[in-house]
Structure formats: C-alpha cells, structure tokens
C-alpha cells in the first residue's frame, strides 16, 4: 500500500477534543493536513475546546477550526451529529477523517458482580458504543462524495485483555474494535484503524489510579502516576499519525503504541 499523502485539504472530526489525547490528536492532525483543511473539534467542555482551538491556530494557521460543543450521547445527539459532520463544499476536500476518541472509563470502583444498575450500564454503552455508531453513520453520509476516507477508533489493550474492575471499559473497547473490523470488511475503500495509545498522562489515568477497586490494577495506575511513566499524549499521537502516513496497516486492525 502506498504511503498516504496527508498534506491535502482534509475534512477532519475529532471527538473528545477538549483535553488529553483528543486535544493532542487535533493539534497533531492540524499540523499534518494541507491548506484548505477544516478540523471539527467536539466535546462537552467548551473551555477545553477553546484552548484546543487556540493551540491549533498557533501551530497550524492554515487550518480552519470549528468548535461544536455538546454531548454526543445526549438527547439532542442527532442534531449535534449533523452539526459536527456538516461539510461545507465537499468538493473542496481530498480526504475525510474521523477520530472516534471520546470515551469514558466507567465506574471502576465496582466489580462485574456489583454492576446491578441497568441505567449505569446503558448510559455507559450509549456513550462508548452506540453514539460512536450513530456519529460514524452521519460522517459516512456527509462525506459520501469524498473519495478518500479514514476512520480511527481509539481503543485500548483492554479490548484484548481483561482488567479486573474494568468490566464495562473492557467490554466497550472489545465491542468497538469489532464494529470497526466489520466496517473495514464492508468498506474496503475506507482505511480503518483501531489505535491503542498506551497508558497516557491524562485525567483518565488519574481517575483509574483513584477509583479502581482491584488493588493490583489500582497499584499499577498509581505507580504510573507517581513515577511519571505514563506516556505523553503528544508522543503517542505522533506514532498514530506516522501509522496513518505510512499507510501499511491492514484495515480494521488493532495496533498498539508499543507494537
């Protein structure tokens, strides 16, 4: 497979872009894409999105940034998804990308046998699985006329390996990996990558360190936090961008930062 020329006019969506990995992805992609590109950054936190936009504009002034704040899994998600995927003059873009990064850890203070509240479970899968399918579907209809398309699913080692106390998260990531494998099979012209960024120095890792019920798993995250051995999201993102540029991955595959 030939290397991908990413320095072209690109329509790009990044979810969960107000902080952490999503912010790093939005900034790095903005630096990578060409003139005439539009990056749509979405999340619930408008302040964080404003910060992401400022950072993008300081390193990639050739790119237009559009902020769409809202809850992709909330009651008005349909309208929000349409706004996120609103492509002005699709003919002007050579490439369309979506990075499904938004996600949550879930209640890691509970073991699987304690997950008795159906609302907690449904809300979890609504955000981490259903809303991804819906937004992805909107992205696909909106970018139908753009010949080159790339879809990235931010996944985790948890999609492949069980972690005690992390039943919801592991299940969600396993479901997502599979959705994107099916997508890759059905849409051979679309480049689909499930990228596991490694344990990152972000709020999610802090939360894991504080709330994980299982003592071994919690100790691992406390250690990461204390010893500053978690990865810089920027470093992990650069690896992801390189994978996309080299363009050698099998569509639908799961690739980890440490692979």
């Amino acid at each position: 497979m030939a290397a991908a020329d990413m320095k072209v006019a690109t329509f790009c969506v990044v979810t969960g872009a107000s902080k952490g990995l999503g912010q790093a992805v939005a900034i790095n992609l903005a630096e990578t894409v060409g003139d005439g590109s539009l990056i749509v950054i979405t999340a619930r936190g408008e302040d964080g999105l404003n910060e992401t936009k400022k950072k993008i504009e300081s390193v990639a002034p050739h790119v237009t940034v559009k902020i769409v704040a809202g809850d992709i899994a909330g009651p008005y998600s349909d309208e929000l998804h349409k706004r996120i995927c609103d492509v002005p003059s699709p003919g002007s873009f050579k490439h369309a990308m979506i990075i499904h990064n938004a996600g949550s850890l879930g209640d890691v203070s509970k073991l699987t046998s304690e997950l008795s509240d159906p609302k907690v479970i449904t809300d979890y899968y609504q955000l981490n699985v259903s809303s991804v399918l819906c937004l992805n579907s909107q992205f696909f209809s909106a970018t139908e006329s753009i010949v080159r398309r790339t879809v990235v699913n931010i996944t985790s080692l948890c999609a492949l390996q069980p972690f005690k106390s992390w039943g919801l998260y592991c299940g969600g990531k396993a479901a997502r990996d599979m959705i994107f494998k099916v997508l890759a099979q059905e849409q051979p012209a679309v480049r689909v990558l499930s990228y596991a960024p490694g344990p990152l120095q972000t709020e999610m890792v802090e939360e894991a360190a504080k709330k994980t019920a299982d003592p071994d798993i919690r100790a691992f995250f406390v250690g990461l936090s204390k010893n500053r051995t978690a990865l810089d999201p920027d470093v992990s993102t650069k690896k992801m961008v390189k994978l996309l540029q080299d363009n050698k991955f099998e569509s639908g595959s799961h690739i980890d930062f440490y692979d």
Partner: protein
Amino acid sequence: MASTGLSAMFGPATFCAVTGGSRGLGRSIAVQLAGRLGEGSRLVLTGRSLQGLQETKRQVEEGCPNQLEVKLVTGDMEDTTAYPALFFDIFADTQPGDFKNALMIHNAGTVGDVSKRAAEHSDPQILNKYYATNLTSVIALTAKFMEVFPCSDVRRTVVNISSGAAIEPLAHHALYCSGKAARNMFFKVMAEEEPDVRVLSYSPGPLDTDMLQTVRSCGDKKIEDRFNAMESKGLILSPDHSAKHMCTLLDEDKFKSGAFLDVFDRFSL
C-alpha cells in the same frame, strides 16, 4: 431414578436459570439440563413468549425422570425498566441454603437489523435497545445472580452463550458481532475477579433455528453462500446436539474459567 453423569455442577439442589427458553437453543438447553438436575432442583425459564415457554416446560417434564420444579417468567430484556420486577421473579423464593449449585445460562439474544451495514446504523433508540437486550440485561442479571448467591458454599456457574461472531467480523452483523465480543470480554473480566465462580463462554455453532434464518437472509452474498455450503456438508447442527455438547463441557468441568469454547472445539480462550 438418578441421572447418569451427576457432577458437582449439577446434581441435587441445583438452581438453574435459562434465558430465551421459549424456543431454539434455549429450549434445547432447558431439556438437556433438566435431565441432569437432581432432587430439589429448580429450573427457571425466561422468554418473551409464554406459549413458547409452556411448550418448553412440557418437553422438559416429558423427558425428565426426576421431580423438577419448573418456573416460567415472561419478560422482554429490551425493557430495562422492567428488570427489577423480572429479576425478582426469576429468583423469587430462593432462600439461603435451598440450593447447593447455581447455574445461570445467558442464552437470550437477538441478531439485530442485518439489512444494515455498520455505517448505516443511525438510530440511537434502536441501538440502545439492541445493547440493552444483548449486553445490559446480561450484566445486570449476572449481578443479581451474584447477589442472590453471594457465597462460594454454593457452587456457581455462569454460561455466556456466545458465537464465532465474537471473534470473526461478519458483514451486516456489526451489532451482533460487537455484542458478542463485549460479552466475551466482560465474562473474562468476571472470571478474573471471581475465582470461585465457573465462567464459560460457549459458541454453539451454526444451529437450525429461527436466528439462523435471519442471518442467512441478511443480503450479503458471501454469508449466504457460506451457510449454503455448510448446509450441504451437514454442518448445520441441531440445537439439541449443541446443547448436549455444552452440558458435556459443564459436566467434565475441565475448562479454564473465562474460556471461550465452541461446539467444534475450534478455539479456546
């Protein structure tokens, strides 16, 4: 007359719940298990169709040599607001010390709208209902099972009826594949957390049931061809055959907790 092959998994005073017991594999599992449950056991069957459940009960009682209490609970796993009442009914009248073994078989499941490809699933209500039926219900019901049987003095077993689709992506089956993948992983986590509970994800193979008819008519030529080929080679199984194999696995009790096993022994873990 005692059944042969009584093991610590079955035998006297076993509580057994099977979801989706009104037809297909669930019915076969109920009938096969019933023959192995000893005195003082209770079999609870859930499903959407009372008529279907009643027919299953009739077949169970016909084939079962022991006096077995069979309880039917109708309900729809799509409706999460109905879970508290439904779960209460499933485990009602279960006093501590009544049972020596407890078996939870998560068999109920749906295949979803197989006319749609992954990029065409756009209705959040439909998706939420799908995952409620196939994922949320299983998680919440397992938690209830563990609440009712919290101690290791009752030998507890949880079976997740899975599928090859949990590990192999199938066109038009994004929902089914992802739901099964999530369940497999969830039960792996449970197996790690609960070393005293026997957890098995069982793939029953391609079965001659209503679900297979839906799958075969999904509109993807490769899938249609594949199942046609399987049929001509005699590889479509009867649900009874698969249910028997599952019972053998449980009986032998050699599987690693959390393992993913299938009727053809094609893969493990």
